[in-house]
C-alpha cells in the first residue's frame, strides 16, 4: 500500500490533500509528496523489498501510488555494473555505472512515467499528456498504450522526424508546435490548465518526480545495502538529483541503511548550464538561459528544481560541473569503448563531468562512485555518427581485408590463450 500522506509546499510548508496539483495556492511554490514514515518503518524491511518483483515496484511501499493497479512495463531494477576499465581510465578505484538504458523505452523516464501514469488512473484521468523533445514523450506514449488510455504528446515543430517515431509508434497523438521553445512551454502550461489531462510533469508532477527515487533505492540495494560515497547525476530540471538525495535520506530514515554520507554532484552541458553557473557564482539564484547544446535531453533553460538541486549539492558536499559538446562526445565514446555501454548525450555529460571532477580533485580516487547513465545512445546517434571509425570497405578476399587493415595503420589483433 502507499503511505503517501499529503502534498507539502517546499516554500511555505502548507499542506494539501493528495490531489492532481503541483503548485501551492498561497505562494505558488512547488508541491512535494510527504509520507507517514512511522508507518512505513513498521511495514518496510530489506527482506520485504528483496521479496518483491525485479522492477521499480519492489519499492511499492515507498511510492505515492497503489502498486496493485500499476501501469507496469517492468521499468526499473536496471543493472549496476562495476566499471573497472572506465575506472582505470579515469583514475577511480571503485566506479559503478547505473545503466538505465535498459528500461522499456530506453531511459530513466520510464520510472517517473510509471508512477505518474499509475497515479493518473487513480485520479480517474483517461488521458496522459506531456511536452518533450524525446525520452519523456516515448515513455508517456508507451505507458498510455499499456494502460489503454489516450496520450497527447507535444513537441517543438523543428524536432528531427526520427525522434517522433519512438512516440508515434505507440499510437499517441503527436502535436508539433510552431514557435520558439518558450512558446511551446507557455502553450503547454495553458493546455494543462484547460483540459482534464494528467500532464505528467505539470499537474501530476509531485507524483511523477517521486519515481526518480527508485534509482537511489536500487543503487543502495545493489551495493549490498550501503550508500555510495559519491553520485554523479545529470541535471536538466534538477529534479532527478534532488530525488536521489531524497531517496537515500528516506532509506536511512526507514533504517534500511545504517548511514548516508553521500556526496551528490550534478553535471550539465556547457551550452545549457544555469545550475552549474549559479553554483560557480556561489548563489542559489538561477538565471534562465537559452539552450545551445547537443545534449538536448538536458536542455532545460529554466530549471524548475535548480534551486533545490543546488541545496542538495551544497548540503551533501558535492559539486557541479559543465562540459562542452566535444567533451560530451568524448565521454560517450569513452563509456562505449571502455564498458560496452552506448549512452545518449546525457551519459556523455556525466562521464565528461566525472572526468573533470576527478582531475580537479573534487572526486576522491578511492571513493565508491556511482555514475548515473539515464538514456540509451541509439536515440541520439547523430551526436557521434561523424566522430567514430568508419567501416573498412573491402572485396571478399583475405588479401583485401589485410590490405585494408594495413592501410589504417594497424596490426591484425587476435590471440588465444589463458587470461
Amino acid at each position: 500500500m502507499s503511505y503517501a500522506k499529503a502534498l507539502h509546499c517546499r516554500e511555505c510548508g502548507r499542506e494539501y490533500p493528495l490531489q492532481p496539483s503541483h503548485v501551492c495556492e498561497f505562494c505558488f511554490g512547488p508541491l512535494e509528496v510527504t509520507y507517514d514514515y512511522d508507518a512505513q518503518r513498521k511495514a518496510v524491511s530489506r527482506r520485504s523489498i528483496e521479496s518483491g518483483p525485479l522492477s521499480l515496484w519492489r519499492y511499492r511501499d515507498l511510492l505515492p501510488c497503489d502498486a496493485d493497479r500499476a501501469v507496469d512495463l517492468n521499468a526499473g531494477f536496471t543493472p549496476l555494473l562495476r566499471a573497472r576499465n572506465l575506472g582505470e581510465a579515469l583514475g577511480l578505484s571503485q566506479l559503478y555505472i547505473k545503466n538505465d538504458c535498459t528500461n522499456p523505452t530506453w531511459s530513466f523516464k520510464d520510472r517517473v512515467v510509471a508512477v505518474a501514469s499509475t497515479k493518473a488512473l487513480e485520479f480517474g484521468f483517461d488521458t496522459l499528456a506531456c511536452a518533450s523533445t524525446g525520452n519523456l514523450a516515448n515513455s508517456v506514449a508507451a505507458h498510455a498504450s499499456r494502460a489503454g488510455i489516450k496520450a497527447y504528446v507535444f513537441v517543438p515543430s523543428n524536432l528531427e522526424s526520427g525522434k517522433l517515431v519512438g512516440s508515434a509508434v505507440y499510437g499517441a497523438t503527436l502535436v508539433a508546435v510552431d514557435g520558439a521553445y518558450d512558446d511551446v512551454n507557455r502553450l503547454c502550461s495553458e493546455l494543462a490548465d484547460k483540459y482534464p489531462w494528467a500532464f505528467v510533469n505539470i499537474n501530476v508532477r509531485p507524483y511523477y518526480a517521486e519515481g526518480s527515487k527508485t534509482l537511489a533505492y536500487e543503487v543502495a540495494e545493489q551495493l549490498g545495502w550501503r550508500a555510495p560515497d559519491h553520485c554523479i547525476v545529470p541535471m536538466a530540471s534538477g529534479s532527478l538529483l534532488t530525488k536521489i538525495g531524497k531517496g537515500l535520506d528516506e532509506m536511512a530514515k526507514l533504517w534500511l541503511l545504517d548511514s548516508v554520507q553521500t556526496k551528490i554532484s550534478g553535471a550539465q552541458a556547457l551550452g545549457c548550464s544555469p545550475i552549474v553557473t549559479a553554483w560557480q557564482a556561489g548563489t542559489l539564484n538561477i538565471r534562465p538561459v537559452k539552450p545551445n547544446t547537443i545534449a538536448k535531453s538536458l536542455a532545460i533553460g529554466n530549471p524548475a528544481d535548480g534551486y533545490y538541486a543546488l541545496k542538495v549539492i551544497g548540503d551533501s558536499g558535492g559539486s557541479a560541473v559543465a562540459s562542452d559538446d566535444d567533451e560530451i562526445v568524448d565521454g560517450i565514446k569513452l563509456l562505449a569503448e571502455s564498458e560496452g555501454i552506448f549512452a545518449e548525450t546525457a551519459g556523455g555529460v556525466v562521464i565528461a563531468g566525472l572526468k573533470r571532477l576527478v582531475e580537479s580533485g573534487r572526486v576522491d580516487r578511492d571513493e565508491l562512485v556511482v555514475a548515473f547513465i539515464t538514456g540509451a545512445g541509439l536515440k541520439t546517434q547523430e551526436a557521434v555518427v561523424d566522430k567514430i571509425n568508419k567501416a573498412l570497405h573491402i572485396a571478399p578476399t583475405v588479401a583485401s581485408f589485410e590490405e585494408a587493415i594495413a592501410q589504417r595503420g594497424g596490426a591484425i589483433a587476435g590471440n588465444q590463450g589463458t587470461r
Partner: protein
Amino acid sequence: MAKQRVKFTFPQELIKEPVIHELGKSFNLITNIRRADVTEDRGWVILELEGELDEIERGVQWVASKGVRVDPVQGDVVEG
C-alpha cells in the same frame, strides 16, 4: 475575467523600472505578487495576473518586449 500565473525574471537594467505597476495600469490587470527575490543587480517575481484574457496576453507580450523574461511558474515544461 481570466487568471494567469507567471514568473518574471528581470535583467539588471530593468530592476529600477516600475514594470509591474505599468503592466497593471496599461492593461487594466490586477497584479498579485506571491513570491519574489530582488536585489540591486537581478530579480525575479512570481505573480498572478487577473483581467481580460486578451489584455493578459497583450500585457505579457509587452513585458517580454521590455526585456523581461516571462516563464510559467513551474519552470520549463518541455523536457527531454
